[in-house]
């Protein structure tokens, strides 16, 4: 009794100390950020305003949060760390692992009709386009980058460059030569792969941080070319009026030979949206199928071996130059496909869409999902992109925070939260284990602690 009493008191003291410390740091950081505000008065002069109440509230929230965390969560974490580890994951988790992927695929397939049935042609457009298509684009980009970062272990921060190459190739070829989407899709993929190899060559000798910096710069170079090569790319103004894909030759318009008329439906833009949804779904499935297939081929094993130990690869006669270049090329190809789809869907592209932020989001998706895991990457894309889209829907928050509150402004905050949570809860991503590509008797999942992340 005596002992337990003293531990409680010690914890309380520590919690108060930590809360005071956190409050102090918060005060130091927030004093200039929140405490002072500059506003323009009616004479167009900047005047300094102080917001002590808001500052006090924020500091109190942070100190209180830290107090509760130290009092409740820290002991719970300590208990959990000391508790004996269960030898086997609970049955529900194994079942979840087995059924999650088929269920998710099934849901992805029935999603548009479901949305159509539940919210009608007007409402469904938002759900299919903003959520479905948008998320699937990032799933595909995540899966493409997963080959480079997750399998080959090469940290690429300029992935959006290949997305841009794909988008501009489709836009320019379709507008200039009037070629069809299906013909341009492989061309865009090839061009992106070409640029992937071109980037690959100079960075072959670089590893880790250095590789990340050079790829980041490459992404910026491509964006700056798009901005400054005005005769071809039209600079900041971008390219508009990009031909939309047709349903195997049947355009989606209100004409007599349009899609709706041919199939005896009432005209509605939702059919194009649903077609685009299935198009990107098919492209994403192709990406996944190829990745799964390649992992079981020598090239896929060489990628993973490269991530595990490059020197050992070379000692086994593997040409690491070619192996890295194929990884870059393969990843870039999928970005090129996604890019040409993006251009066809938007009908308008500009360099604005291919900023470093996009690369960061895709890398975040791959890292949060667990490098190398298709299911994990897809889940992370749903959480990250779905989460930001949900932000647009939270209009009721305006009733609480006032009418000039814009939830979408807090997108980055959500990213930060997701990152911090994953770092605490699953430092190696949602699914960090890996499935072997070949086995004698039984395929045993490789635990996360053995799988390396690659150093470049």
């Amino acid at each position, binding site marked *: 009794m005596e002992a337990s009493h003293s531990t409680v008191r010690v914890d309380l003291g520590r919690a108060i100390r930590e809360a005071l410390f956190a409050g102090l740091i918060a005060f130091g950081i927030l004093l200039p950020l929140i405490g002072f505000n500059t506003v323009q008065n009616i004479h167009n002069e900047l005047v300094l305003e102080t917001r002590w109440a808001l500052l006090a509230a924020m500091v109190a929230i942070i100190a209180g949060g830290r107090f509760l965390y130290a009092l409740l969560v820290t002991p719970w974490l300590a208990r959990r760390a000391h508790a004996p580890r269960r030898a086997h994951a609970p049955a529900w988790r194994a079942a979840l692992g087995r059924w999650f992927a088929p269920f998710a695929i099934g849901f992805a397939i029935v999603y548009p009709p479901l949305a159509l049935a539940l919210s009608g042609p007007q409402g469904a457009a938002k759900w299919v386009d903003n959520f479905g298509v948008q998320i699937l684009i990032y799933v595909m980009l995540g899966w493409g980058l997963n080959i480079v970062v997750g399998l080959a272990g090469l940290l690429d921060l300029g992935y959006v460059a290949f997305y841009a190459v794909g988008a501009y190739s489709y836009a320019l070829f379709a507008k200039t030569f009037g070629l069809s989407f299906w013909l341009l899709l492989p061309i865009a993929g090839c061009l992106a792969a070409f640029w992937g190899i071109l980037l690959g060559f100079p960075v072959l000798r670089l590893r880790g941080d250095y590789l990340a910096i050079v790829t980041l710069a490459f992404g910026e170079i491509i964006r700056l070319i798009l901005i400054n090569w005005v005769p071809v790319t039209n600079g900041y103004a971008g390219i508009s009026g990009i031909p939309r894909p047709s349903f195997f030759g049947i355009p989606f318009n209100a004409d007599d030979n349009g899609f709706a008329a041919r199939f005896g439906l009432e005209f509605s833009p939702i059919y194009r949206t649903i077609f685009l949804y299935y198009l990107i779904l098919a492209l994403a499935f192709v990406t996944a199928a190829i990745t799964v297939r390649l992992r079981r081929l020598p090239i896929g094993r060489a990628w993973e071996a490269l991530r595990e130990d490059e020197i050992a690869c070379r000692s086994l006669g593997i040409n690491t130059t070619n192996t890295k270049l194929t990884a870059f090329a393969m990843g870039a190809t999928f970005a090129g496909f996604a890019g040409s789809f993006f251009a066809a869907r938007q009908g308008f592209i500009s360099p604005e869409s291919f900023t470093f932020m996009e690369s960061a989001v895709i890398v975040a998706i791959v890292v949060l999902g667990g490098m190398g895991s298709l299911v994990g990457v897809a889940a992370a894309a749903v959480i990250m992109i779905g989460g930001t889209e949900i932000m647009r829907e939270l209009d009721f928050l305006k009733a609480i925070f006032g009418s000039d509150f814009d939830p979408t402004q807090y997108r980055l905050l959500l990213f930060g939260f997701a990152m911090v949570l994953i770092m605490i809860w699953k430092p190696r991503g949602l699914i960090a284990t890996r499935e*072997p590509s070949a086995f004698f008797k039984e395929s045993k999942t490789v635990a996360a602690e053995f799988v390396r992340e690659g150093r470049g």
Partner: protein
Amino acid sequence: MSYDPPASGTRPDPASPAVATPMLQVEHLSMRFGGLVAVNDLSFTAQHRDITALIGPNGAGKTTVFNCITGFYKPSEGRIALQYGDAGVWEELGALTERGTRSTRRGDGALFLLERMPDYQVTQQARVARTFQNIRLFAGMTVLENMLVAQHNALMRASGWTVLGALGLPSYRRAERAAIDKARYWLDKTGLVGRADDPAGELPYGDQRRLEIARAMCTEPVLLCLDEPAAGLNPHESAELGDYLNAIRDEQSTAILLIEHDMTVVMEISDHIVVLDHGQKIADGTPDEIRNDQKVIAAYLGVEEDVADEVLAELPGAPP
């Protein structure tokens, strides 16, 4: 279907007892890192089907020699020639050196100048495999996958550089089954077949060492370079390792080049020993000759620095 290892004798054996030609000939090898001379004018040869040991105190330059032979370093000076198949190809050595190319063939004989080849080609074409002082396994891949990665080049050809394999052609599936059989053969020999589906990083230390050797053997080398294979093994495991290396040499007719500090293992299994000190060769001979060599005793086998001077002074021809 099972893997038949290339039996001894099926592989062309050029080293007829009458004219012993070397398989590896290192001449005037020097390696400098800035001002540091790691290896200085080293020459030695290794014979077909021999176990050649490279010994010397720490920092003597043994691993540097390995890195030069396996292409990880480009030597500052010197020539490293390796031959397999018809020994007549040695006659091409001068012409090959003049020509500036990497390799030449005559009949079924092949001759390589290893100092001109990048690391992966040394394994891929000259068929030299190596292990590392600090074990380099693919820890996150299973034991079997490690063995399959080692057969990358053969499988790559069989998969038609991925294209045919991606289409799932039967010829590739056959090749993959053969590769798995080969992996099973070597895992069987190493006693690791029961752990084939476990991640390599999960194996105990001794098993990891043996797996690294088995993995190197999957590349079908003519020369196997082992960098301290007995490091960290207990006496029982070291003895087993000796038997294992003897078996590789006898059954596969693979020559072995060995860096090792464990003198029991070295004296037991080596046919030929080269002793290095401060980047220079101080002795070269059979285990018996080395055991009785005064210079080796002084430099390497545990004589104190001040005593070493006395020992050296007693040697005939030593400077006063």
